[in-house]
């Protein structure tokens, strides 16, 4: 018999399922909550976009948005618009009142793999191949940017400065000002950088690497920290709202780095083992220290960083977790699966 190790016993609750439905035809690539928390949008590998009511799970609208796969779907920060992008080289802007198409941004043959709304909801950044575009709501380009030397792996707006953004690609991160066509600064790193994430205070910029590592730049100085030894490439990155903790995937364990005080250099990270297959999604709640993780084992786990413990679990029988997203008020968690299923969990129950 295995011995009981810890003195304090936590009760691990199953996640309270508000509803769980097949909302898409295929692998769900992306999820987005409407800012008011009423609607949730999904984009799938068959090119389908589906909008559901959060409360009832009923379909609000659904349509084939892209030939080939749909890759991204995002509500604008003011909730008035929705953008979808896909492998057909297009990004469409819709009116979220009726989901009528307002405009299209055309990237030619390249897959539009990243979209990012400007804070003011009046412009949108799209990345396809080596090409970056900033467009108005009518789809017209605001500015042409100098092409990247390799495919853009991710793009993110600086959360504190309105017109600054960053893009990652092979051999570094470029920092841009939306008003200039040439990048302002290159944070060099010889290697393949994947996803990027600004800390909410914009003082730290994290990037996952193809070769089993994560990289964090301290801004504006540009000093960098390098964390390696992950079993797989690192794509899953999430900062907590206080900019103190960075959670990373890249293997079976959630690895959390503490950036308070002197930072994580020389310190051991906090590890959360619990998945039986590689972690595929990771996200901190909008407030507080609850962290949700999803894996290829079909498991969704919610961790409490204060308690250093898992607090609730959900297990899907036959499908991998593909994306996770907290509702804007943090009361609910949405998880999407490779089967096209979407589950909404209620955390306040």
């Amino acid at each position, binding site marked *: 018999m295995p011995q009981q190790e810890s003195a304090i016993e936590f009760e691990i609750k199953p996640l309270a399922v508000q509803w769980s439905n097949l909302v898409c035809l295929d692998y769900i690539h992306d999820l987005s909550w409407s800012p008011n928390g009423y609607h949730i949008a999904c984009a799938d590998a068959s090119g389908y976009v589906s909008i559901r009511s959060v409360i009832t799970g009923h379909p609000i609208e659904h349509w084939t948005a892209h030939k080939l796969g749909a890759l991204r779907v995002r509500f604008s920060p003011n909730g008035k618009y929705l953008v979808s992008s896909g492998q057909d080289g297009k990004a469409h802007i819709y009116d979220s009142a009726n989901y009528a198409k307002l405009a299209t941004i055309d990237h030619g043959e390249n897959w539009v793999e990243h979209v990012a709304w400007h804070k003011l909801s009046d412009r949108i950044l799209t990345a396809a*191949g080596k090409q970056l575009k900033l467009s108005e709501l009518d789809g017209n380009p605001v500015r042409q940017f100098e092409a990247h030397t390799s495919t853009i792996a991710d793009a993110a707006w600086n959360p504190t400065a309105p017109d600054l953004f960053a893009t990652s690609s092979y051999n570094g991160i470029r920092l841009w000002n939306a008003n200039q066509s040439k990048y302002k600064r290159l944070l060099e790193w010889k290697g393949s950088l994947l996803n990027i994430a600004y800390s909410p205070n914009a003082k730290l910029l994290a990037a996952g690497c193809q070769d089993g590592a994560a990289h964090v730049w301290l801004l504006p100085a540009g000093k960098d920290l390098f964390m390696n030894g992950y079993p797989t490439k690192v794509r899953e990155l999430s900062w907590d709202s206080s900019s103190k903790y960075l959670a990373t995937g890249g293997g079976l364990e959630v690895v959390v780095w503490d950036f308070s005080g002197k930072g994580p250099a020389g310190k051991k990270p906090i590890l959360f083992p619990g998945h039986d297959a590689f972690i595929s999604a990771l996200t901190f709640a909008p407030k507080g220290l609850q962290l949700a993780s999803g894996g290829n084992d079909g498991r969704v786990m919610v961790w409490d960083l204060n308690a250093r413990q898992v607090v609730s679990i959900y297990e899907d029988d036959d499908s991998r977790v593909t994306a996770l997203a907290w509702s804007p008020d943090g009361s609910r968690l949405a998880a999407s699966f490779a089967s096209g299923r979407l589950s909404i969990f209620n955390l306040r129950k």
Partner: protein
Amino acid sequence: MSSNPKVPVTVLTGFLGSGKTTLLNRILTENHGKRIAVIENEFGEIGIDDALVVKSDEEIFEMNNGCICCTVRGDLIRILGNLMRRRDKFDYILVETTGLADPAPVAQTFFVDDEIQAQLELDGIVTVIDCKHIVMHLDSSSECKEQIAFADVILLNKTDLVSEKELCELEERIRSMNAMAKIHRTRNAVIDMEKVLNLSGFNLDKALSTKPSFLEPDYPFEWGGVYEFGLERLTLRLENGPDPAMDVLFLEADYSERVTIDKLAEKAFRLFSVDKIPLSSGAVIDKTNQVYALSLASEGTKSFEISLKPGLYTLFTQHRPEEFALSLCTTGGTKEARNCVFYQASHIHDSEISSVGIDTEGDLDQTKFNDWLSKLLREKGTDIFRMKGILSIAGQSERFIFQGVHMLFDGRPDRLWGEEKRSNQMIFIGRNLNRAELVEGFNSCLNKNRQLNLR
């Protein structure tokens, strides 16, 4: 989670104009009913509508994984990863590379990325060659050599543009560079699909499943014959031949019936790489285990007296005996070899790219072998393109199978040896490989007791 069978991926390489795109179109037309996705370089022209074609710019990424030569194709990681998410999965994926592509990053992508590894399997690398124009690239282009060295299948295409003699020479040269690949001659890239698809070239279960002829190494000698010497006076006689000199070696062959020429050939192979004694006509051959460089430039018959005690000997000659009308004369006549073996000539080989095959009995000491292989890959990994092997590890009842690309490799225990005779078979394909060093290094990992028994 249910684990679906992995989707095979075939990589097509070859210079511009070799017939690579013709082959690709042929595969697509002949595979009705299969869902095929094609990842095509920017210059490709595919004429088939129902295949999903994704254009891709080759993006080569260096990996910071402590392995200096590890590069991957970043574009393939992205595209393949995405394609595999679709519910209506593809049955097959073809990757067409640019004419000047280095195949290593493509192959290494399948070893390095976890997503790719979980869902896809590199089935094989098929290299298409334009017989007429290859010759000018073979000497100058390292990409061309690497495409040949990495291949599981090589199509000698456009055979109608060259003579049979040119074709034979080309085939022999390519064989010397890559002894593992299957070579097919084609016109207009016409070939049975089963010869290019579903090869399982990188599948460990099928690695070396058919005992390949490539394991016969290219020896520095072309002939070996066993003689029985008595007390009679013996003279080795040679006439003028194609070369002004020839190396010869006598080895004691023991009285044991079990000793084969092949066993001795390995020893001879090592001796041929050490110092040789030059010898002119009239001199005496009185040592075994010593290579003599016979000087044969002078006109007329050259004679060398043989002074060795009675017994069984194997004579190895650098060239074929008939080229020099070689004979072993006694007072009464000539002595014939009891049996003899011809070896593949090595001097026609490409100087830079070659294959080294090892086929030896005995059990490997696992620690020694690991140490040797990791040191080898650390030092020579950039020059070792591909390797495959079936190994007999001391104390383990299963066969150990492994394969690798540059410094990356994977291996695991396979089925039980059972009734099958335990042995080690291995092949290296690479640049500037030192055969003697590889063979010696490998042999030094063999379990000592076992080695003594063999001897």
